[in-house]
Each structure stands twice: as C-alpha cells, then as structure tokens.
C-alpha cells in the first residue's frame, strides 16, 4: 500500500497574458490504502492535482512522492491507475478490446482484480462486449473507462469524476463495487467528484479544494464504518461538506 505525499507544490500554466498560478505551496498527504475524495468548484485545479500525482505534469516547484517513488517511477512500476475526465476510449477497439488494452500495456501488473468478463458484468455492459465506442451512450463509455482503469489492478487509483455521466441507480450500484474492489486490493485512491453523496459514501476523508491559487479549505475525515448505509448520517456529512464548499467559494 502506497502513501501519496505532496510537499510545497507549486504549479502554473502559461496563459494568454502571463501565467495562471493554480497551486502555490500545496501540501497534502494521504495514508496508504486510504480513499480520499477531492471536491471543489469547477476549474479550481482538481484534474491538475491528479495530473501532478500521475506525473503527467511536472510541478513548477515542490516534491511529490508515491510511497518511496517519484510519480515517474511509480508509473514505470505500473502502480498508477488513471481515469481521466473524458472516457478517452480508442474508437477502433471494442468495449472488450478497450478494457483489454489495460492488460496489454500493463502486462507486468501484479494483480488483475477481476477478469475482463467480470469487469464488463460489473459495469453493466454485458451484451455490449463487441460494440465500438461510437455505438455507446456517454455513460456507457464512462463505465468502459472505469472497467479499463481497474482491469490491471493498480495500487494507486487517480479517478477524475468517474461517475459524472451516470444516473443515480447505476452510480449507487457501481459505488458498492468500487468500494469492494478498493478494500479487497488495498489501493490508495484519489477520487474527484462533484457528487457530495458519492463523496461521503466513499471517502475516508473529503478534501475541499478552492480558490485561485487553490488551497485546501477543509479536510473532513469520515470515520464511519463501511458500508455506509445510514442515510441520515450520510445526509449530515453531505451538509458538512457542502458548508465547507460554500465557505470556500471563489
């Protein structure tokens, strides 16, 4: 199980006039095997944070560690599971082919949690194995991307709004599956979402990011036992997170 640590991270993008500073002195550490949910207003830097953690972006300053490793080393060690904000399916591969891609590229992966068939069943796409992405609805595409991310059993999951295109029912079902897989495999998870219900159902902790440059406005630990089914308590936590979000308004 790997911890994620960001120390004094600074990041800026070149922009039409000058630079856009997204992070200035960001510090975050996440326990090995924990499930951290990141929420925050649109455009505050959640996706950028995940990109930094994956080593897809290099911070302009600061230090990031995945366990003992740099993000690049963690990637090289096939520790990273990445689910971007767009499904990014390969249009020339079928549903099955897209999921298999994870196995083909991460051939060295240690522990595929489920077979491709099981994954397809899990995301509710049985019968669509041989369909091409253009034949799928937005939510179906997102579910394929989810299955693909989990297929190789990565140790660190970097998930950017993985349920954004899903309906409440599908969301609830998948939530349970994801929680089960996470617990079974001890992955360390960074999970971006806008759905506060989802956030408090899944998170060991909810990190509220806001502002420009973005700062951590609140870290809300959720010590509840799992699975969390007490709708009343969930509602309470949602309200706590919402309050933190509203407080940290742009």
């Amino acid at each position, binding site marked *: 199980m790997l911890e994620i640590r960001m120390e004094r991270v600074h990041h800026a993008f070149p922009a039409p006039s000058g630079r856009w500073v997204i992070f200035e002195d960001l510090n975050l550490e996440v326990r090995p095997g924990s499930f951290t949910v990141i929420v925050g207003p649109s455009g505050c830097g959640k996706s950028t944070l995940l*990109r930094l953690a*994956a*080593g*897809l972006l290099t911070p302009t300053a600061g230090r990031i560690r995945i366990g003992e490793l740099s993000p690049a080393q963690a*990637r*090289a060690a*096939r520790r*990273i*599971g*990445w689910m*971007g904000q*767009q499904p*990014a*399916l*390969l*249009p*020339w*591969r079928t549903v099955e082919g897209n999921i298999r*891609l*994870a196995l*083909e*590229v*991460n051939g060295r992966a240690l522990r595929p949690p489920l077979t491709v068939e099981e994954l397809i069943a899990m995301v509710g796409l049985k019968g669509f194995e041989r369909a*091409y*992405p*253009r034949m799928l609805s937005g939510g179906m595409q997102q579910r394929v991307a989810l299955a693909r991310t989990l297929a*190789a059993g990565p140790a660190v999951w*970097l998930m950017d709004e993985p349920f954004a295109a899903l309906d409440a029912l599908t969301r609830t079902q998948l939530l349970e599956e994801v929680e089960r897989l996470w617990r079974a495999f001890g992955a360390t998870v960074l999970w971006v979402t806008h759905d506060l219900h989802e956030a408090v159902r899944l998170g060991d902790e909810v990190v509220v990011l806001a502002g420009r440059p973005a700062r951590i406005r609140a870290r809300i630990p959720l010590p509840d036992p799992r699975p969390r089914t007490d709708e009343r308590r969930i509602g309470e936590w949602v309200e706590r997170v919402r309050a933190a979000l509203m407080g940290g308004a742009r």
Partner: protein
Amino acid sequence: MSPMEMELPRLRSGARLAPWVPLLALPLALLGWELIVREARVPVYLVPAPSVILSTLWAERGLYLQATGVTLGEAAAGLALGMGVALALAVATAFWPPLERAIMPLVLLLKAIPLVAIAPILTLWFGFGPLPKVLMTALLTFYPALVPLMTGLRAVDPAALELLRAWDASAWEIFRHLRWPSARPYTFAALKTAIPLALIGAVVAEWTGASGGLGRTMWLAQTNLDMPRLFAAALILAAVSLAGYTGAALLERRARWWSPEEAHP
C-alpha cells in the same frame, strides 16, 4: 417525423442523385473531347480523338497488355519500397521527433536531384534491368507519402495519450495502440496519393533505356509523334491508377469500420 422531412438537409448535401451519376463525368468528358477534336479538326499528331485512341488500344491489345504487366510490376515494387521507406522515416520521427530536422534536409536534397539526372547513375550502378526503375519509382513516390504519414502519426487524441502515459506505456506501445491507428486517415491519404505517382514514376523511369513497359511504349510513340499510341498508353495508366485509387478507397472504408462516416478517429 416521416423520412421525407429529412430531405431538406439531404438535398443540400446533394446526396439525392443516384450514386452512379457522377461516374458519367468520364464518359462525358471523353465524348466532349471526341467532338472537339472532330469539329475543330485537331490534327492527330497533337491530340488524337478518343475513338482513335481506343481503336489503337484494341488493335494492339496484346502488346499493351504485356507492357502494362511490366510497368505494373515495377510500379508495385516501387510503391512498396517508397511507402515502406516513407513509413520507416515517419515512424522514426514519431519515436524521436527531432529526427525530422535531420531527415528533411537530406530528403529534400535527394528530391532536388531530378530523376533524369539520377536515372543514368542508377543505370550505371544497377544495369539496364528493372531494379533502377523500381528505385526511381520509389524515389518519386516516397515524398508525397512521407509528409502526411509524419503528420498523421502526431495527430493523436491528447486524452488517450495521457492515459497511455499514465500507464507508462513504452514509445512502441504508444505507437502501436495509439499513433498507428490514429494515423489511419493520413495513411490512406498517403496511399491514395502514392498509387498514381508510382505508376507515373515507373513510366518516367522507363522513358529512356528500358526494354519494355508502358514508359517505353510512350517514349517510342513520342519520338515517332505517334500520339494515338501515346494516349493509348496514358489511358491504360489512368485506368490502372483509378483502379488502384478506388481499391485504396474501399480498403479505407473497411479499415475504418469503427468510425462514423464523417469523423476523425
């Protein structure tokens, strides 16, 4: 909504005409050509009438068939070689982009030396056989294939590239899983460009110093100012080019089964 209601936009894109209607363009053009040549009494040593060309073609079909075989062989080999080299160079630049700056000056230098100047040197090195013709065809073909291939191998979906990078996919894996399939429309553009050029390349290579082929037929016809024979050979060339082009287009449609009619990959 009845199907009728879709016709407004359809009409606009003109898809209502039967699909064979545009195919009439060629016969109509030939007919027009025939009429102009006849009415204006264009002399046969300048531009022969299609009827004259076709009857020449028919009368000497055996000879033309044989010549076509020779040229087709050289063109096919040259195309394979030219596309192969173009692909190899494009792939190399995909793996290591700065290579473009190393390759292009050399490529353009090679392109700048006219074939007619290279031809004798190739003949001196490789004799009078088909090999120099194949090499010249490849030389003529590879450049118009190289540029679209290089462009295509870079035209990838950034989100997919990000995914593969997150997985620490090797350059080879990125190539295999992303660049190569993404470049498909460019690859077919390159192929469709290269096919007619390969045929022309073979003809130019045969122009002097060949013992057979359509190029030699055309050279003989030109030196004898025998335009019907020259144009007969050109007609064959055009037909073969068209067949090749159409074949490539069909192949392209099959190779993009996963894509909507109008879309990038």
